[in-house]
Protein backbone atom coordinates (compact mmCIF):
# COMPACT_ATOMS: atom_id res chain seq x y z
CA UNK A 1 0.00 0.00 0.00
CA UNK A 2 1.11 3.59 -0.61
CA UNK A 3 2.41 5.21 2.60
CA UNK A 4 -0.25 7.51 4.04
CA UNK A 5 -0.68 10.10 6.76
CA UNK A 6 -3.98 10.42 8.54
CA UNK A 7 -5.62 13.45 10.12
CA UNK A 8 -8.57 13.02 12.47
CA UNK A 9 -10.31 16.38 12.71
CA UNK A 10 -13.25 16.82 15.04
CA UNK A 11 -15.22 19.36 13.03
CA UNK A 12 -16.10 19.99 9.40
CA UNK A 13 -14.31 23.37 9.57
CA UNK A 14 -11.11 21.76 10.76
CA UNK A 15 -11.35 19.09 8.05
CA UNK A 16 -11.70 21.80 5.41
CA UNK A 17 -8.65 23.62 6.80
CA UNK A 18 -6.54 20.50 6.54
CA UNK A 19 -7.78 19.69 3.05
CA UNK A 20 -7.03 23.27 1.99
CA UNK A 21 -3.50 22.96 3.34
CA UNK A 22 -2.58 19.90 1.29
CA UNK A 23 -4.46 20.55 -1.93
CA UNK A 24 -5.15 17.63 -4.21
CA UNK A 25 -2.73 15.40 -2.31
CA UNK A 26 -5.30 15.24 0.46
CA UNK A 27 -8.59 13.41 0.34
CA UNK A 28 -11.58 12.77 2.57
CA UNK A 29 -11.43 9.32 4.13
CA UNK A 30 -14.87 7.93 5.02
CA UNK A 31 -15.37 4.15 4.97
CA UNK A 32 -12.23 3.74 2.89
CA UNK A 33 -13.53 0.82 0.85
CA UNK A 34 -12.85 2.62 -2.42
CA UNK A 35 -9.74 4.54 -1.31
CA UNK A 36 -7.97 1.48 0.13
CA UNK A 37 -8.20 -0.33 -3.20
CA UNK A 38 -6.70 2.70 -4.93
CA UNK A 39 -3.92 2.89 -2.33
CA UNK A 40 -3.19 -0.84 -2.43
CA UNK A 41 -2.89 -0.67 -6.21
CA UNK A 42 -0.61 2.37 -5.80
CA UNK A 43 -2.63 4.56 -8.10
CA UNK A 44 -0.70 7.75 -8.77
CA UNK A 45 -3.78 9.97 -8.38
CA UNK A 46 -4.87 8.49 -5.01
CA UNK A 47 -4.53 10.94 -2.11
CA UNK A 48 -1.85 10.26 0.51
CA UNK A 49 -2.94 12.75 3.18
CA UNK A 50 -6.18 11.23 4.35
CA UNK A 51 -8.62 13.28 6.36
CA UNK A 52 -10.63 10.76 8.36
CA UNK A 53 -13.96 12.48 8.99
CA UNK A 54 -15.39 9.74 11.22
CA UNK A 55 -14.34 11.55 14.41
CA UNK A 56 -16.70 14.38 13.47
CA UNK A 57 -19.95 14.03 15.41
CA UNK A 58 -23.29 14.45 13.76
CA UNK A 59 -22.65 13.16 10.26
CA UNK A 60 -24.16 9.72 10.79
CA UNK A 61 -27.95 9.68 11.10
CA UNK A 62 -31.22 8.91 9.36
CA UNK A 63 -33.95 11.26 10.55
CA UNK A 64 -37.28 12.73 9.52
CA UNK A 65 -37.25 16.34 8.37
CA UNK A 66 -40.71 17.07 9.81
CA UNK A 67 -42.32 17.46 6.37
CA UNK A 68 -42.51 13.81 5.43
CA UNK A 69 -39.00 13.72 3.97
CA UNK A 70 -35.81 12.22 5.33
CA UNK A 71 -32.30 13.54 6.01
CA UNK A 72 -29.34 11.17 5.87
CA UNK A 73 -25.88 12.06 7.19
CA UNK A 74 -23.03 11.51 4.74
CA UNK A 75 -21.31 9.01 7.06
CA UNK A 76 -24.33 6.73 7.39
CA UNK A 77 -23.27 3.18 6.54
CA UNK A 78 -24.91 1.36 3.66
CA UNK A 79 -25.87 -1.41 6.11
CA UNK A 80 -27.75 1.16 8.20
CA UNK A 81 -29.66 2.32 5.12
CA UNK A 82 -30.45 -1.28 4.21
CA UNK A 83 -31.79 -2.00 7.72
CA UNK A 84 -33.71 1.24 8.28
CA UNK A 85 -37.44 0.76 8.85
CA UNK A 86 -38.08 4.41 8.12
CA UNK A 87 -36.44 4.19 4.69
CA UNK A 88 -38.06 0.82 3.93
CA UNK A 89 -41.45 2.36 4.56
CA UNK A 90 -40.90 5.58 2.62
CA UNK A 91 -38.37 4.74 -0.08
CA UNK A 92 -38.42 0.97 -0.62
CA UNK A 93 -36.77 1.35 -4.04
CA UNK A 94 -33.72 3.04 -2.48
CA UNK A 95 -33.42 0.28 0.12
CA UNK A 96 -33.70 -2.33 -2.63
CA UNK A 97 -30.84 -0.65 -4.49
CA UNK A 98 -28.64 -0.47 -1.37
CA UNK A 99 -29.21 -4.15 -0.57
CA UNK A 100 -27.72 -5.00 -3.96
CA UNK A 101 -24.47 -3.06 -3.49
CA UNK A 102 -21.15 -4.90 -2.94
CA UNK A 103 -21.39 -7.43 -0.05
CA UNK A 104 -22.71 -7.46 3.55
CA UNK A 105 -19.22 -6.93 5.01
CA UNK A 106 -18.50 -4.03 2.67
CA UNK A 107 -21.87 -2.45 3.42
CA UNK A 108 -20.88 -2.41 7.11
CA UNK A 109 -17.89 -0.25 6.17
CA UNK A 110 -18.91 1.96 3.27
CA UNK A 111 -20.87 5.19 3.58
CA UNK A 112 -23.58 6.82 1.50
CA UNK A 113 -21.35 9.84 0.75
CA UNK A 114 -18.50 7.61 -0.39
CA UNK A 115 -20.79 5.60 -2.63
CA UNK A 116 -21.94 8.70 -4.48
CA UNK A 117 -18.41 10.11 -4.79
CA UNK A 118 -16.56 6.87 -5.56
CA UNK A 119 -13.90 6.69 -8.25
CA UNK A 120 -14.73 4.78 -11.44
CA UNK A 121 -13.78 1.10 -11.58
CA UNK A 122 -12.22 1.02 -15.06
CA UNK A 123 -9.69 -1.82 -14.90
CA UNK A 124 -6.99 0.34 -16.52
CA UNK A 125 -7.22 3.10 -13.92
CA UNK A 126 -7.54 0.60 -11.05
CA UNK A 127 -4.60 -1.32 -12.46
CA UNK A 128 -2.42 1.80 -12.25
CA UNK A 129 -2.22 2.69 -15.97
CA UNK A 130 -1.47 6.36 -16.43
CA UNK A 131 -4.65 7.35 -18.24
CA UNK A 132 -6.45 10.71 -18.19
CA UNK A 133 -7.75 10.03 -14.69
CA UNK A 134 -4.29 9.11 -13.46
CA UNK A 135 -2.19 12.00 -14.70
CA UNK A 136 -1.71 10.74 -18.26
CA UNK A 137 -2.98 11.74 -21.68
CA UNK A 138 -4.73 8.72 -23.10
CA UNK A 139 -7.84 6.66 -22.42
CA UNK A 140 -7.16 2.94 -22.56
CA UNK A 141 -10.80 2.09 -22.00
CA UNK A 142 -11.87 3.63 -25.29
CA UNK A 143 -9.45 1.46 -27.27
CA UNK A 144 -8.93 -1.60 -25.07
CA UNK A 145 -11.26 -4.06 -23.34
CA UNK A 146 -14.37 -1.98 -22.76
CA UNK A 147 -16.84 -4.80 -22.27
CA UNK A 148 -17.79 -4.09 -18.65
CA UNK A 149 -16.70 -0.83 -17.05
CA UNK A 150 -17.12 1.53 -20.02
CA UNK A 151 -19.76 3.79 -21.41
CA UNK A 152 -22.10 2.75 -24.19
CA UNK A 153 -23.52 6.28 -24.38
CA UNK A 154 -20.40 8.10 -25.55
CA UNK A 155 -17.79 10.04 -23.61
CA UNK A 156 -15.42 12.97 -23.82
CA UNK A 157 -12.00 12.11 -22.42
CA UNK A 158 -12.74 9.32 -19.96
CA UNK A 159 -15.09 6.55 -21.11
CA UNK A 160 -15.61 4.84 -17.74
CA UNK A 161 -19.17 4.36 -16.50
CA UNK A 162 -20.29 6.05 -13.32
CA UNK A 163 -20.48 3.07 -10.94
CA UNK A 164 -22.64 4.21 -8.01
CA UNK A 165 -26.10 2.75 -7.52
CA UNK A 166 -27.23 5.17 -4.82
CA UNK A 167 -27.06 8.30 -6.96
CA UNK A 168 -29.00 6.49 -9.69
CA UNK A 169 -31.66 5.38 -7.21
CA UNK A 170 -31.93 8.84 -5.63
CA UNK A 171 -32.75 10.72 -8.85
CA UNK A 172 -36.36 9.44 -9.15
CA UNK A 173 -36.87 10.72 -5.59
CA UNK A 174 -35.60 14.22 -6.51
CA UNK A 175 -33.07 14.03 -3.67
CA UNK A 176 -30.48 16.73 -2.97
CA UNK A 177 -27.13 16.87 -1.21
CA UNK A 178 -25.59 19.47 1.09
CA UNK A 179 -21.94 20.29 0.65
CA UNK A 180 -19.70 22.20 3.07
CA UNK A 181 -17.21 24.42 1.24
CA UNK A 182 -14.66 26.97 2.53
CA UNK A 183 -17.22 29.62 1.55
CA UNK A 184 -20.29 28.15 3.20
CA UNK A 185 -22.84 25.48 2.47
CA UNK A 186 -24.25 24.73 -0.94
CA UNK A 187 -27.02 22.48 -2.09
CA UNK A 188 -26.93 20.43 -5.30
CA UNK A 189 -29.32 18.07 -7.02
CA UNK A 190 -27.95 14.60 -7.67
CA UNK A 191 -27.64 15.38 -11.36
CA UNK A 192 -25.59 18.48 -10.53
CA UNK A 193 -23.42 16.45 -8.15
CA UNK A 194 -22.46 13.72 -10.64
CA UNK A 195 -22.54 15.12 -14.18
CA UNK A 196 -19.76 12.69 -15.16
CA UNK A 197 -16.35 13.26 -16.75
CA UNK A 198 -15.65 16.72 -15.24
CA UNK A 199 -12.35 18.56 -15.00
CA UNK A 200 -12.15 19.89 -11.42
CA UNK A 201 -8.93 21.23 -9.85
CA UNK A 202 -7.02 19.82 -12.81
CA UNK A 203 -8.40 16.34 -12.22
CA UNK A 204 -10.87 14.38 -14.27
CA UNK A 205 -13.65 13.12 -12.01
CA UNK A 206 -17.31 12.05 -12.09
CA UNK A 207 -18.50 14.55 -9.48
CA UNK A 208 -18.11 18.31 -9.07
CA UNK A 209 -16.75 18.52 -5.52
CA UNK A 210 -13.49 20.42 -5.18
CA UNK A 211 -10.60 19.01 -3.15
CA UNK A 212 -11.61 20.94 -0.04
CA UNK A 213 -15.36 20.39 -0.12
CA UNK A 214 -17.20 17.86 2.04
CA UNK A 215 -20.54 16.26 1.40
CA UNK A 216 -22.48 16.40 4.66
CA UNK A 217 -26.07 15.37 4.03
CA UNK A 218 -28.51 13.80 1.60
CA UNK A 219 -32.09 15.08 1.76
CA UNK A 220 -34.99 13.22 0.20
CA UNK A 221 -38.37 14.96 -0.07
CA UNK A 222 -41.58 13.22 0.97
CA UNK A 223 -42.93 10.82 -1.62
CA UNK A 224 -46.34 11.92 -2.93
CA UNK A 225 -49.35 9.61 -2.82
CA UNK A 226 -49.40 7.48 -5.95
CA UNK A 227 -45.61 7.32 -6.35
CA UNK A 228 -44.30 3.94 -7.50
CA UNK A 229 -40.71 3.03 -8.13
CA UNK A 230 -38.56 0.07 -9.03
CA UNK A 231 -34.83 -0.66 -9.15
CA UNK A 232 -33.25 -3.40 -11.23
CA UNK A 233 -29.64 -4.35 -11.73
CA UNK A 234 -27.94 -6.85 -14.01
CA UNK A 235 -24.51 -8.16 -13.10
CA UNK A 236 -22.45 -11.32 -13.55
CA UNK A 237 -22.56 -12.37 -9.87
CA UNK A 238 -25.13 -11.45 -7.24
CA UNK A 239 -22.48 -9.99 -4.91
CA UNK A 240 -19.46 -7.69 -5.35
CA UNK A 241 -20.06 -7.06 -9.04
CA UNK A 242 -21.07 -3.67 -10.38
CA UNK A 243 -24.07 -3.14 -12.62
CA UNK A 244 -23.60 -4.09 -16.27
CA UNK A 245 -26.79 -2.07 -16.54
CA UNK A 246 -29.31 -0.89 -13.99
CA UNK A 247 -32.55 1.04 -14.03
CA UNK A 248 -34.19 3.21 -11.40
CA UNK A 249 -37.68 4.12 -12.51
CA UNK A 250 -40.18 6.28 -10.65
CA UNK A 251 -43.73 7.01 -11.74
CA UNK A 252 -46.13 9.52 -10.23
CA UNK A 253 -49.59 8.11 -10.81
CA UNK A 254 -53.04 9.64 -10.57
CA UNK A 255 -55.48 6.72 -10.59
CA UNK A 256 -53.70 4.79 -13.33
CA UNK A 257 -52.51 7.75 -15.38
CA UNK A 258 -48.82 8.62 -15.38
CA UNK A 259 -48.43 12.25 -14.32
CA UNK A 260 -44.67 12.36 -14.11
CA UNK A 261 -41.91 9.88 -14.83
CA UNK A 262 -38.20 9.37 -14.09
CA UNK A 263 -36.29 6.81 -16.10
CA UNK A 264 -32.65 6.64 -14.97
CA UNK A 265 -30.18 4.07 -16.26
CA UNK A 266 -27.03 3.20 -14.32
CA UNK A 267 -23.90 1.38 -15.43
CA UNK A 268 -24.15 2.35 -19.08
CA UNK A 269 -22.82 5.94 -19.16
CA UNK A 270 -20.39 8.28 -17.39
CA UNK A 271 -23.27 9.52 -15.23
CA UNK A 272 -26.67 8.27 -14.10
CA UNK A 273 -28.40 8.45 -17.49
CA UNK A 274 -31.85 10.06 -17.55
CA UNK A 275 -33.74 9.02 -20.63
CA UNK A 276 -36.05 12.01 -21.10
CA UNK A 277 -37.50 10.75 -24.39
CA UNK A 278 -39.08 7.82 -22.57
CA UNK A 279 -40.09 10.01 -19.62
CA UNK A 280 -41.94 12.39 -21.93
CA UNK A 281 -43.56 9.53 -23.80
CA UNK A 282 -44.86 7.99 -20.58
CA UNK A 283 -46.40 11.22 -19.28
CA UNK A 284 -50.18 11.28 -19.70
CA UNK A 285 -50.40 7.60 -20.65
CA UNK A 286 -52.27 4.90 -18.77
CA UNK A 287 -49.80 2.57 -17.06
CA UNK A 288 -49.84 -0.90 -18.61
CA UNK A 289 -47.48 -3.24 -20.40
CA UNK A 290 -49.01 -2.04 -23.69
CA UNK A 291 -46.60 0.88 -23.39
CA UNK A 292 -43.54 -1.35 -23.45
CA UNK A 293 -43.03 -1.73 -27.19
CA UNK A 294 -43.21 1.99 -27.95
CA UNK A 295 -41.11 2.90 -24.91
CA UNK A 296 -38.39 0.51 -26.04
CA UNK A 297 -38.39 1.94 -29.54
CA UNK A 298 -37.84 5.38 -28.06
CA UNK A 299 -35.20 4.39 -25.51
CA UNK A 300 -31.46 5.08 -25.87
CA UNK A 301 -31.66 6.05 -29.53
CA UNK A 302 -28.43 8.02 -29.23
CA UNK A 303 -26.45 5.06 -27.89
CA UNK A 304 -22.80 5.03 -28.95
CA UNK A 305 -21.43 1.65 -27.90
CA UNK A 306 -17.71 0.97 -27.97
CA UNK A 307 -16.23 -2.10 -29.59
CA UNK A 308 -17.24 -4.65 -26.92
CA UNK A 309 -20.12 -3.19 -24.95
CA UNK A 310 -23.18 -2.98 -27.22
CA UNK A 311 -24.85 -5.62 -25.03
CA UNK A 312 -25.21 -2.98 -22.31
CA UNK A 313 -27.83 -1.28 -24.46
CA UNK A 314 -29.77 -4.52 -24.92
CA UNK A 315 -29.58 -5.14 -21.19
CA UNK A 316 -30.77 -1.63 -20.40
CA UNK A 317 -33.75 -2.02 -22.72
CA UNK A 318 -34.56 -5.38 -21.16
CA UNK A 319 -34.58 -3.70 -17.76
CA UNK A 320 -36.94 -1.02 -19.06
CA UNK A 321 -39.37 -3.71 -20.23
CA UNK A 322 -39.24 -5.55 -16.91
CA UNK A 323 -39.46 -2.27 -14.98
CA UNK A 324 -42.68 -1.30 -16.73
CA UNK A 325 -44.06 -4.81 -16.22
CA UNK A 326 -43.17 -4.71 -12.52
CA UNK A 327 -44.80 -1.32 -11.91
CA UNK A 328 -47.86 -2.20 -13.98
CA UNK A 329 -48.36 -5.35 -11.89
CA UNK A 330 -48.43 -3.71 -8.45
Amino acid at each position, binding site marked *: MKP*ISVYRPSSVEEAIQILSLHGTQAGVYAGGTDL*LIQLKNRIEAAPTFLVDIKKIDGLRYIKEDGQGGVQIGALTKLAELAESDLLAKRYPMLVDAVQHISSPELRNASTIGGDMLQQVWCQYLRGGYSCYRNGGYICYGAIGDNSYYHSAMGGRLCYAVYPGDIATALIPHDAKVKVATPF*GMKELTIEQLVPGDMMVDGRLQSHVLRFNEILTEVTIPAPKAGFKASFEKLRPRGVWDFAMASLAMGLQLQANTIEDARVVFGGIAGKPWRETAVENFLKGKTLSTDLTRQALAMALTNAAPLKYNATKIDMAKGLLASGIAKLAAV
Partner: protein
Amino acid sequence: MEYSRRNFIKAAGVGAVAVTTTVSAVVSGAEVAAAAPKPSPLAIPDAMNRETNTFNINGKNYRAEYEARTTLWEVIAVKLGLTGTNRSCNRASCGACSVLIDGRPFYSCHTLAMEAVGKKIFTVEGLGDEKNLHPLQRVAHLYSAAECGFCTPGWEVTAKALLDKNPNPTVEQVKAALSGHICRCAAYAAIVRTVIDTGKVLRGEAEIA
Protein backbone atom coordinates in the same frame (compact mmCIF):
# COMPACT_ATOMS: atom_id res chain seq x y z
CA MET B 1 12.07 31.32 15.15
CA GLU B 2 13.83 29.18 12.67
CA TYR B 3 12.46 29.42 9.18
CA SER B 4 12.41 25.75 8.39
CA ARG B 5 10.36 24.50 5.45
CA ARG B 6 7.87 23.02 7.87
CA ASN B 7 7.18 26.37 9.57
CA PHE B 8 6.74 27.94 6.22
CA ILE B 9 4.19 25.39 5.11
CA LYS B 10 2.25 25.74 8.31
CA ALA B 11 2.30 29.52 8.12
CA ALA B 12 1.20 29.36 4.51
CA GLY B 13 -1.98 27.77 5.81
CA VAL B 14 -3.10 31.12 7.22
CA GLY B 15 -4.65 32.11 3.95
CA ALA B 16 -6.75 29.01 3.82
CA VAL B 17 -8.01 29.53 7.33
CA ALA B 18 -8.93 33.15 6.87
CA VAL B 19 -11.38 31.90 4.30
CA THR B 20 -12.68 29.01 6.32
CA THR B 21 -13.99 31.21 9.11
CA THR B 22 -17.03 31.83 6.96
CA VAL B 23 -17.87 28.15 7.07
CA SER B 24 -18.58 28.17 10.76
CA ALA B 25 -20.81 31.16 10.22
CA VAL B 26 -22.99 28.99 8.05
CA VAL B 27 -22.55 25.61 9.64
CA SER B 28 -23.05 26.51 13.25
CA GLY B 29 -24.90 29.82 12.86
CA ALA B 30 -25.56 31.45 16.20
CA GLU B 31 -22.92 29.55 18.14
CA VAL B 32 -20.13 31.36 16.37
CA ALA B 33 -20.18 34.46 18.54
CA ALA B 34 -20.19 32.46 21.75
CA ALA B 35 -17.61 29.89 20.66
CA ALA B 36 -14.02 30.03 21.85
CA PRO B 37 -11.63 31.89 19.55
CA LYS B 38 -10.87 29.93 16.38
CA PRO B 39 -7.81 27.75 16.75
CA SER B 40 -4.88 29.35 14.97
CA PRO B 41 -3.75 27.64 11.78
CA LEU B 42 -0.56 26.57 13.51
CA ALA B 43 -2.73 24.44 15.79
CA ILE B 44 -3.56 21.99 13.03
CA PRO B 45 -2.55 18.72 14.64
CA ASP B 46 0.25 16.68 13.16
CA ALA B 47 -0.82 13.86 10.93
CA MET B 48 -0.58 10.31 12.23
CA ASN B 49 1.94 8.13 10.42
CA ARG B 50 2.68 5.57 13.12
CA GLU B 51 1.26 4.96 16.59
CA THR B 52 0.91 2.37 19.33
CA ASN B 53 -2.47 1.36 20.70
CA THR B 54 -4.39 -1.36 22.46
CA PHE B 55 -6.53 -3.83 20.54
CA ASN B 56 -9.23 -5.80 22.28
CA ILE B 57 -9.30 -9.17 20.54
CA ASN B 58 -11.54 -11.95 21.83
CA GLY B 59 -11.74 -10.22 25.19
CA LYS B 60 -7.98 -9.87 25.67
CA ASN B 61 -5.99 -6.66 25.31
CA TYR B 62 -2.94 -6.61 23.05
CA ARG B 63 -0.65 -3.67 22.39
CA ALA B 64 0.74 -3.16 18.94
CA GLU B 65 2.59 -0.54 17.01
CA TYR B 66 1.30 0.07 13.51
CA GLU B 67 1.57 2.49 10.61
CA ALA B 68 -1.32 4.55 9.29
CA ARG B 69 -1.48 2.22 6.30
CA THR B 70 -1.36 -1.03 8.33
CA THR B 71 -4.51 -3.08 7.96
CA LEU B 72 -6.29 -4.81 10.79
CA TRP B 73 -5.36 -8.21 9.32
CA GLU B 74 -1.67 -7.28 9.42
CA VAL B 75 -1.98 -6.41 13.12
CA ILE B 76 -3.95 -9.53 14.03
CA ALA B 77 -2.02 -12.12 12.06
CA VAL B 78 1.44 -10.65 11.53
CA LYS B 79 2.08 -8.39 14.53
CA LEU B 80 0.13 -10.36 17.14
CA GLY B 81 0.53 -13.84 15.70
CA LEU B 82 -3.15 -14.76 15.80
CA THR B 83 -2.84 -16.67 12.55
CA GLY B 84 -6.31 -18.18 12.49
CA THR B 85 -7.64 -15.41 10.27
CA ASN B 86 -6.58 -15.97 6.66
CA ARG B 87 -5.98 -13.35 4.03
CA SER B 88 -6.55 -14.32 0.43
CA CYS B 89 -7.42 -11.59 -2.07
CA ASN B 90 -6.46 -8.53 0.00
CA ARG B 91 -8.99 -6.58 -2.13
CA ALA B 92 -12.28 -6.94 -0.24
CA SER B 93 -13.45 -9.56 -2.71
CA CYS B 94 -13.42 -12.99 -1.04
CA GLY B 95 -14.32 -12.87 2.67
CA ALA B 96 -11.51 -15.11 3.96
CA CYS B 97 -10.22 -12.41 6.29
CA SER B 98 -13.54 -11.57 7.99
CA VAL B 99 -13.58 -10.69 11.68
CA LEU B 100 -16.29 -9.18 13.84
CA ILE B 101 -15.93 -5.61 15.03
CA ASP B 102 -18.49 -4.79 17.72
CA GLY B 103 -20.48 -7.80 16.56
CA ARG B 104 -20.62 -6.98 12.86
CA PRO B 105 -18.53 -8.68 10.16
CA PHE B 106 -15.83 -6.67 8.39
CA TYR B 107 -13.07 -7.65 5.97
CA SER B 108 -9.94 -7.25 8.11
CA CYS B 109 -7.78 -6.90 4.98
CA HIS B 110 -9.83 -3.86 4.04
CA THR B 111 -10.06 -2.14 7.42
CA LEU B 112 -7.24 0.05 8.64
CA ALA B 113 -5.87 -1.01 12.04
CA MET B 114 -6.58 2.45 13.47
CA GLU B 115 -10.30 1.96 12.89
CA ALA B 116 -10.54 -1.00 15.24
CA VAL B 117 -8.85 0.64 18.23
CA GLY B 118 -11.23 0.80 21.18
CA LYS B 119 -13.66 -1.66 19.62
CA LYS B 120 -14.32 -5.31 20.38
CA ILE B 121 -12.65 -7.51 17.77
CA PHE B 122 -13.67 -11.14 17.45
CA THR B 123 -11.67 -13.67 15.42
CA VAL B 124 -11.96 -17.39 14.84
CA GLU B 125 -9.68 -17.98 17.85
CA GLY B 126 -12.50 -16.62 19.98
CA LEU B 127 -14.94 -19.15 18.59
CA GLY B 128 -13.27 -22.23 20.02
CA ASP B 129 -10.01 -24.15 20.19
CA GLU B 130 -8.96 -27.74 19.53
CA LYS B 131 -10.13 -28.91 22.95
CA ASN B 132 -13.29 -26.92 23.07
CA LEU B 133 -14.83 -26.46 19.63
CA HIS B 134 -17.83 -24.23 19.06
CA PRO B 135 -20.93 -26.15 17.83
CA LEU B 136 -20.49 -24.37 14.49
CA GLN B 137 -17.04 -25.92 14.15
CA ARG B 138 -18.16 -29.37 15.26
CA VAL B 139 -21.07 -29.45 12.81
CA ALA B 140 -18.82 -28.10 10.05
CA HIS B 141 -16.40 -30.94 10.74
CA LEU B 142 -19.22 -33.47 10.61
CA TYR B 143 -20.50 -32.17 7.25
CA SER B 144 -17.04 -31.60 5.71
CA ALA B 145 -17.92 -27.93 5.36
CA ALA B 146 -14.20 -27.20 5.46
CA GLU B 147 -12.35 -28.84 2.60
CA CYS B 148 -9.07 -26.97 2.18
CA GLY B 149 -10.18 -24.80 5.10
CA PHE B 150 -8.89 -21.51 3.78
CA CYS B 151 -12.26 -19.75 3.71
CA THR B 152 -13.47 -21.37 6.95
CA PRO B 153 -12.33 -18.87 9.63
CA GLY B 154 -13.98 -16.09 7.66
CA TRP B 155 -17.45 -17.50 7.16
CA GLU B 156 -17.52 -19.04 10.63
CA VAL B 157 -17.28 -15.68 12.37
CA THR B 158 -19.84 -14.18 9.99
CA ALA B 159 -22.15 -17.13 10.65
CA LYS B 160 -21.68 -16.62 14.39
CA ALA B 161 -22.73 -12.98 14.02
CA LEU B 162 -25.83 -14.15 12.16
CA LEU B 163 -26.74 -16.81 14.73
CA ASP B 164 -26.19 -14.37 17.61
CA LYS B 165 -28.77 -12.07 16.07
CA ASN B 166 -31.08 -14.72 14.67
CA PRO B 167 -30.71 -18.27 16.03
CA ASN B 168 -33.35 -19.58 13.62
CA PRO B 169 -32.41 -18.30 10.16
CA THR B 170 -33.96 -19.52 6.93
CA VAL B 171 -31.81 -20.90 4.12
CA GLU B 172 -32.34 -17.63 2.24
CA GLN B 173 -31.18 -15.60 5.24
CA VAL B 174 -28.06 -17.75 5.62
CA LYS B 175 -27.23 -17.35 1.94
CA ALA B 176 -27.72 -13.59 2.14
CA ALA B 177 -25.62 -13.23 5.30
CA LEU B 178 -22.78 -15.35 3.90
CA SER B 179 -22.93 -13.94 0.39
CA GLY B 180 -19.71 -12.02 0.96
CA HIS B 181 -17.66 -15.23 1.17
CA ILE B 182 -16.12 -17.23 -1.62
CA CYS B 183 -15.25 -20.89 -1.09
CA ARG B 184 -12.94 -22.03 -3.84
CA CYS B 185 -13.60 -25.67 -2.92
CA ALA B 186 -17.29 -24.89 -3.42
CA ALA B 187 -18.40 -26.42 -0.13
CA TYR B 188 -21.36 -24.04 -0.24
CA ALA B 189 -24.11 -26.61 0.26
CA ALA B 190 -22.36 -28.04 3.32
CA ILE B 191 -21.70 -24.55 4.69
CA VAL B 192 -25.36 -23.54 4.48
CA ARG B 193 -26.42 -26.85 6.03
CA THR B 194 -23.89 -26.33 8.83
CA VAL B 195 -25.28 -22.93 9.75
CA ILE B 196 -28.90 -24.10 9.65
CA ASP B 197 -28.17 -27.17 11.77
CA THR B 198 -25.95 -25.29 14.21
CA GLY B 199 -28.96 -23.08 14.79
CA LYS B 200 -30.87 -26.21 15.82
CA VAL B 201 -28.08 -27.24 18.18
CA LEU B 202 -27.88 -23.80 19.76
CA ARG B 203 -31.65 -23.78 20.24
CA GLY B 204 -31.41 -27.15 21.95
CA GLU B 205 -33.48 -28.91 19.27
CA ALA B 206 -30.71 -31.25 18.12
CA GLU B 207 -27.51 -32.81 19.35
CA ILE B 208 -24.25 -33.37 17.54
CA ALA B 209 -23.75 -37.07 16.90
